[in-house]
Every structure is written in C-alpha cells, then in structure tokens.
C-alpha cells in the first residue's frame, strides 16, 4: 500500500467493521444467519410459542397426520410434533453452543501454550492432541458419553472434549506463526510479559480463524448431539430432542413419516444454515482477501 492510498482512506475502519461490511455482501451467508437466528428465537421462545405441552401424551391422538390442530402431526404417544421440534431446538442449539464454547475454553489455552512455549510442553500437548484426533470425532464422543452415562449434560461434555483437539491444533499452529512475526518481537522488546504476549497480542490476531472453525464445529456438535440422542445417550425421554424423535420415528417410517420428516428437516436446515454462515465468516475474515 502506498502512502497516497493510505491517506486516501477517509476514516478509520476497524477490522471488525470491515469484516461486517464484507459479510453482509455475502447473500447465502446472510440467509444462513437469518435461519440460525430464527431457530435461536424459536428455541428461546418455545415455552410461549409451542401450541402444546411437548411431553403431554394423548391416547386419542396417536400418530395423526398433520392437520390444522397439529401442524406437524402427532407421534406414537399422541404428542404434538411441532411443539416437540420447537422444544427440541433447545437441546440441539444448547448442545451445539455450550459444547463448542467449552471446547474453545479447553482447547485454545492449551494451543496457545503449546505454540508459544515450544519445547517439551509443546511435544506433550501435541502428542495428546494427536492421540485424540486419531479417534474419529463421533466414535470418541459416543465412547465418552457411554462412559459418563446417558444424560444431555454428559453428551455435551463428551462432545466438548471430542471437539477440543481441533482447537488445540489450530491455536497452536497460528500461535507458532505469530511467534515468528516482527510484531511479537516488537511486543517483547516493549517489555510485555509472556502472558500478555499470549493474551493481549497473539489471541486477538487468531480470533478470526478460531471463530470460523467454532461456527463449523457448532454444526458438527448439533449432529453429534442428535446422534447421541438417537442412540439414547443424550436427551432422555420424555424430554424432546431431534435425535431421539428420529429414533422413535424409525419404527413408524411408513405409517407416520411426518414423525421423521420434521425433526430431520430441522437438523438439516440448522446445519446447512450454520455451514453457510461459517463460509461467509471465512470469506469476510480471510486475511488473504484483506483490502477487498
């Protein structure tokens, strides 16, 4: 950038503002954001907008097809599918959001430590990470959930632990890259203590890729929660979860397909929307595309 180009910039545009501007140009990503926000809203307002009690059974309305009264039909115990999908959004989004937050909290500090400290600290953290990454994500989550016992909280913990090594590796790689930059050298020359280098200088610089990875990890965590609940390791009956609803639905796939279609559609939509959102974030925050 030449001196004239720099002085032609009329006002200071912060990196965050510029990313927002570029994100808003990305139509699919904005659509994804809208869908995600709609689901978040539905989950938050479930107690008020759900037409029926999601766990109230009714022997007179077993497996009724969609109607004006039950827009998404009813299940094998006569419960309203729409209400269960709305309440189920709570389990799914909570599992996605909380488990990824926990995975970040667990993974990023270890990644920063490994990348910046180097030496045996790095070797130790990296080998543990490699060992965890050598087991497929879902298999590790199932094993941990089975070990911890069937409950939604345990499923979330299992997902968080399984998702953390990817953040360790990402944070470590980016911290190592940052460590060799001149601005870290300059920060050291200014007398910054090591913890301040890590938290005040390196961390803000690696937030964008972490944010993109975290968004995509939420989508994975939602699928993982649905899978665990499908296997009976997540949300426990009678509380609704998209995964356990699918499990119940598979026995009636030909007689009552609506029992499977709506929770399945919900998972599909949320995961697709989050992935679109993540792609948009990646484009908006990509350092190689700076200046566009």
């Amino acid at each position, binding site marked *: 950038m030449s001196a004239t180009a*720099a002085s032609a*910039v009329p006002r200071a545009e912060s*990196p965050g503002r510029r990313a927002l501007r570029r994100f808003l140009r990305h139509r699919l990503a904005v659509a994804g954001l809208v869908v995600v926000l709609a689901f978040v809203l539905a989950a938050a307002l479930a107690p008020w907008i759900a037409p029926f009690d999601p766990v109230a059974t009714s022997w007179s309305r077993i497996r009724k097809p969609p109607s004006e009264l039950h827009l998404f039909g009813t299940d094998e115990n006569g419960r309203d599918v729409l209400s269960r999908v709305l309440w189920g959004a709570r389990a799914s989004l909570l599992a996605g959001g909380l488990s990824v937050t926990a995975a970040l909290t667990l993974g990023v500090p270890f990644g920063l430590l490994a990348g910046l400290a180097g030496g045996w600290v790095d070797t130790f953290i990296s080998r543990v990470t490699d060992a965890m990454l050598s087991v497929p994500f879902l298999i590790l989550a199932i094993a941990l959930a089975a070990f911890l016992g069937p409950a939604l909280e345990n499923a979330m913990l299992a997902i968080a632990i399984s998702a953390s090594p990817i953040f360790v590796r990402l944070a470590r790689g980016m911290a190592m890259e940052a460590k060799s930059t001149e601005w870290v050298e*300059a920060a050291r*020359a*200014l*007398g910054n*203590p090591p913890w301040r280098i890590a938290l005040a200088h390196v961390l803000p*610089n690696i937030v964008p890729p972490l944010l993109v990875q975290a968004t995509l990890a939420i989508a994975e965590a939602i699928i993982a929660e649905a899978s665990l609940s499908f296997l009976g390791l997540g949300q426990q009956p009678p509380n609704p979860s998209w995964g356990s609803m699918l499990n119940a639905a598979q026995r009636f796939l030909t007689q009552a397909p609506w029992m499977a279609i709506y929770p399945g559609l919900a998972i599909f939509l949320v995961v697709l929307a989050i992935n679109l959102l993540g792609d948009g974030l990646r484009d908006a925050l990509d350092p190689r595309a700076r200046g566009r």
Partner: protein
Amino acid sequence: MQALEVRDLAVTFATERGPLRVLDGISFALPPGRTVALVGESGCGKSVASLAIMGLLPPNAAVEGAIRLEGREIAELPPEERRKLRGADLAMIFQEPMTSLNPVFTAGDQVAEALRLHQGLDRARAQAAAVAMLEAVRIPEAARRARQYPHQLSGGMRQRVMIAMALACRPRVLIADEPTTALDVTVQAQILALLDDMRGETGAAVLLITHDLGVVADHADEVVVMYAGRVAETGPAARVLATPQHPYTVGLLGAAPRLDGPRGTRLATVEGTVPDLADPPAGCRFKTRCPFRVAVCDTAPPLLEVAPGHRAACHRAPLDQLLVAA
C-alpha cells in the same frame, strides 16, 4: 558514565551441528546522547549483538561478557528484571515497519501500551500521552492517526509510530536495527533526521545498526565495524571513514557507491565470502579475503590503537603506506 557499555560480549548458539559462536568477544561503549553505528555485512553478528543487549535471544543462545546499562550490570539479571528494562530504559526499533506493528491494534493503542506497561497510566491518560508522542515524532493530525490501524498507514508513518512506541518511556538507550532499510530513500532521510532530533530531545543514546556507510557518515558519532563476529575497527565515524585502518573497512568503503566518483566504473567488491562461523579460520578472520595478508595473520590480531580513540584489529595497521603502494 556511559549509557551502555558492552565488554567481551560473546554469543554461542547450540545448534544440531554443534556450538556456533556467532559473536566472539566484542566491546564498545555508547556515550549518552550520542549515536554509535554498528556496521558490517549480513551475518557478521550486528543483529545478534542488539538482541543480546535487549535480552531477546532464543533460549538456545548462551551469552557471555558484561552488558552495563548506566553502570549497572544487566547481563546476569533474572528474566523478569530484564523484561522490566525493555521498553522502559532499553528500547528497540526494527527493520520492517510494515510488519512490526500488531495488525489488530490502532497506532495510539500501541504507543499507549508502553506507557501502561511501565508507568502504570490508566487508559485515558495513556492515550492522551500517546497522541502527544505521535505529535512529537511529527505525525500530522496525530489525534486522527492514533485511531487508525497499521494497514492504513504508510511505511514511513509506521516507522514513526515504532519510534514513538520505543521512546514513549524515555529510554536511556535506543537500538535501531536497520530502521530505514525497508523505506524509500526520501523517507529514509526523514526518519534518520527524526531519530537525530529525538535523540537530542530525550538525551537517549542511539545504537544504529546499518550497512549503509552514507548513513554512518551523516548520523553517527562513533562507528564499530564488525566482521565475522569480531570488531574489525572502531573509532570516531569521520576519522574511520576518512582514514580506515582495517582492510575490511577499506573494502567496504570501496564498495559504497559515490555520486562524486568517476562515472562508468564498476563498484569495487570485497572478494570472497564471509567465513563459516562453525569453522572459522585461525588467526585473523579476514585473512581469507585480505589483499595484504602475510604470515603473521595466522595469529589473531589484537585491537590496537592506531590514533587517539581509533583502533583496528590488523597486524598491518596503520595501512597508509600499503594503500599508497596499492
């Protein structure tokens, strides 16, 4: 008392090929308010010397010798004490202004950081002081520039911000590691003039690391010429440049382009390459490239005074008769 005094400073890196002694006992002093230039080609140990003084060498580097900051020995201080000196009494600016600023902070934040770290100023007062500092380094519209991010500033502007950061806490010693190498020639001149002015205003001593002899002539009081990890020649800048007493300095001066030299002639080069420091030649390290080499050069030459304050590490110094003959 000297602002900075370095005695027999040696740095050895532990490498896979074995120990590598990149700095082999160099000594020099930095008087307060003066500029001393450290000159030499790439790999001669200039930057290692500056990082050793700052205490910023990687853990595989072993430092020997004395480093005295205003008479106080700092080489043996614990890391935490060394850290407190950095940015406060000892500051450094780097070669690449384009990459030496943290991309996610505004110029003002980066200058304010030094003040918050070392003087415990709160955010608002540090910001106000930072703007004043940016004004001091002649940044126009400092208050507006303080809110801009590095990518919105030109190279010269960024180097001014770096200088403001380094001088914010009024350090006693400023190390400038090739501060203008990455800049346009006109901007170079402005930045060097600014460094001179700031040195006058703050009374800091400046260690200017460069390979540009023109810069040495215009901005340095003293010069230390380094070759392969040792001091080849040292003395008042004007004297060393006018009457060099080490064949290497003679070679460097011959390799510098001059406007008043004869046109159409090729620049002289120093024949050969820098010796491998893993296996340095015995005796004088310059002997492999020296046109005046004789048998005695197989023993290490002492740094001897050839004129008041002017010392050269050459068995054949003074070179005056040899140069006339050549």
